[in-house]
């Protein structure tokens, strides 16, 4: 099907890739030790010298880093490159605490763009495509990241950013947008507005691909989007700390290719920090092998996933992460049971009477946690017999319980009442006092 952006690297035999990773790991460990007071101190505390890292397996000797380290060393205390080499900053919103600052050298921006150039090529995009970037521009990494990646492969970029939904749809038609990059929840909103405007994305636009991420989304949501619009919806992954959006699924849609020459991905048990077996679920840990302003060593991303080293049918040899289950910090604990919003989503999106938008509200009544899932009733799900509606509530509740193992209250609400988001959807309101 589609070609490769850099066939030599992307199809590199695994032994060669591992040899390259080993060289780069040794080099980056030496580099941070020599240039960052933070890492020098950290390594000393852990009793490890750069010389102790002789093979890839030695990576487990290195201490983890975490988001809290970036916060504690706000703004640039963890940087390894001199500030004069920084050509760009991105800053996280700080919704869950103090903001984090990420810096990029000119080379770091190149690496980032190269990573996305490979990814976008792997879903069949290239010269002649029109890529509408509906991620936020500015301090958030989504907009500029996809922008640079799409420009690099010779596509025309429409840097529209988030919001202005009717204009998004008009320009999509007028300029012949073939791919859109935005959050999946925002795309669902675009679909809704298009319908209201009498525009069929399937028939009235040239859209064939969506690059959706920045929030976890389920296979069921993918199916809904693809069935309704006829496009191919691909998952994109990355976090601001390791640059921003970096990797996507290829056209095979069976896992997100992590470019091993740039990043070393591990999966560890979130509790013990011990590596899990290949193919087992755990927390993703990234070491940046080719990033120099702010290299990160064994950075605990907080996302839960599965890593596989099985080669992909597309011919790329680099490891793949399977779907992101959620972030450890998105996880809700309801009456002692772990609940991921993505699990709720996958249940709801399988029920046709329920709309695309939903939210979770958690309250505490006395000693008891109450989880309420608010779902919108679709036009086709509406029966004017109360019994049918009560039956639907019961059905949603029962299916949630079978997946989550806890009871959830279900509120049927009118379409359009659950808040729509332009960026990352806020699905959870936790009213419990911590």
């Amino acid at each position, binding site marked *: 099907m589609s070609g490769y952006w850099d066939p030599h690297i992307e199809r590199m035999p695994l032994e060669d890739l591992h040899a390259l990773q080993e060289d780069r790991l040794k080099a980056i460990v030496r580099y941070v030790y020599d240039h960052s007071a933070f890492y020098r101190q950290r390594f000393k505390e852990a009793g490890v010298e750069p010389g102790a890292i002789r093979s890839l397996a030695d990576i487990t000797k290195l201490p983890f880093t975490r988001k809290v380290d970036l916060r504690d060393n706000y703004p640039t205390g963890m940087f390894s490159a001199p500030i004069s080499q920084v050509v760009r900053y991105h800053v996280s919103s700080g919704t869950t605490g103090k903001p984090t600052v990420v810096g990029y050298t000119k080379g770091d921006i190149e690496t980032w763009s190269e990573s996305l150039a490979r990814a976008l090529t792997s879903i069949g995009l290239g010269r002649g495509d029109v890529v509408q970037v509906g991620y936020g521009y500015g301090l958030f990494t989504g907009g500029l990241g996809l922008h640079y990646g799409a420009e690099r492969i010779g596509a025309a970029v429409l840097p529209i950013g988030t919001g202005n939904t009717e204009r998004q749809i008009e320009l999509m038609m007028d300029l012949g947008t073939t791919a859109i990059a935005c959050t999946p929840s925002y795309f669902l909103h675009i679909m809704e507005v298009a319908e209201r405007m009498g525009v069929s994305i399937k028939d009235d636009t040239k859209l064939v691909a969506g690059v959706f991420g920045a929030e976890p989304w389920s296979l069921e949501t993918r199916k809904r989007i693809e069935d309704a619009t006829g496009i191919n919806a691909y998952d994109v992954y990355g976090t601001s700390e390791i640059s921003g959006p970096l990797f996507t699924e290829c056209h095979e849609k069976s896992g997100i290719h992590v470019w091993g020459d740039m990043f070393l991905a591990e999966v560890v048990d979130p509790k013990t920090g011990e590596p899990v077996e290949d193919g087992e679920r755990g927390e993703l840990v990234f070491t940046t092998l080719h990033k120099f302003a702010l290299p990160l060593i064994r950075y605990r991303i907080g996302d839960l996933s599965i890593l596989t080293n099985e080669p992909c049918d597309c011919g790329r040899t680099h490891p793949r992460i399977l779907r992101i289950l959620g972030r450890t910090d998105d996880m809700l604990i309801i009456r002692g049971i772990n609940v991921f919003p993505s699990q709720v989503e996958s249940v709801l999106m399988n029920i046709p009477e329920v709309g695309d938008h939903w939210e979770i509200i958690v309250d505490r009544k006395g000693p008891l946690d109450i989880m309420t899932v608010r779902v919108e009733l679709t036009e086709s799900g*509406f029966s004017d017999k*109360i019994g049918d*509606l009560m039956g639907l509530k019961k059905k949603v509740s029962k299916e949630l319980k079978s997946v989550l193992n806890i009871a959830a209250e279900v*509120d049927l*609400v*009118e*379409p359009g009442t659950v808040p729509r988001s332009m960026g990352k959807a806020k699905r959870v309101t936790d009213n419990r006092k911590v």
Partner: protein
Amino acid sequence: MAEIKQISLFVENRPGRTAKVAKTLSDAGVNIRALTIAEAGDFGVIRMVLDDPEKGYKVLKENAFTVSMTDVLAVEMKDSPGGLYEIVNTLGQSNVNVDYAYAFVTAKAERAMLILRVDDIAKARRVLGEKGVKIATREEVQAI
């Protein structure tokens, strides 16, 4: 014969929702002949017979309400004891199930009008007709 089209709406149980329905219809010049609200805790279903159901359906949909159209029967009953019994007994004996029903009194006030949603509308029409029960036409309901 054209069946009478009832308009049903899904509404959340919160202040002002019914007012919004009434305002939408009023602004469009659509008149409500009969109305009932069935509530089930946090939501309810409003059912209405309108003088112009197509227009009512259209304006409600444009205002983002979840709305559907259902075929119902409007039968005249004597506005005196036993009026309702005669009708539902006939249906029951003929094995026609009534999903729900609501009544209103016409302006002339000689007769009450019963709106019925049944599982077999053709059969209901036939068995009631055999008993001499008068079934209102669409035009008659519109002209009330």
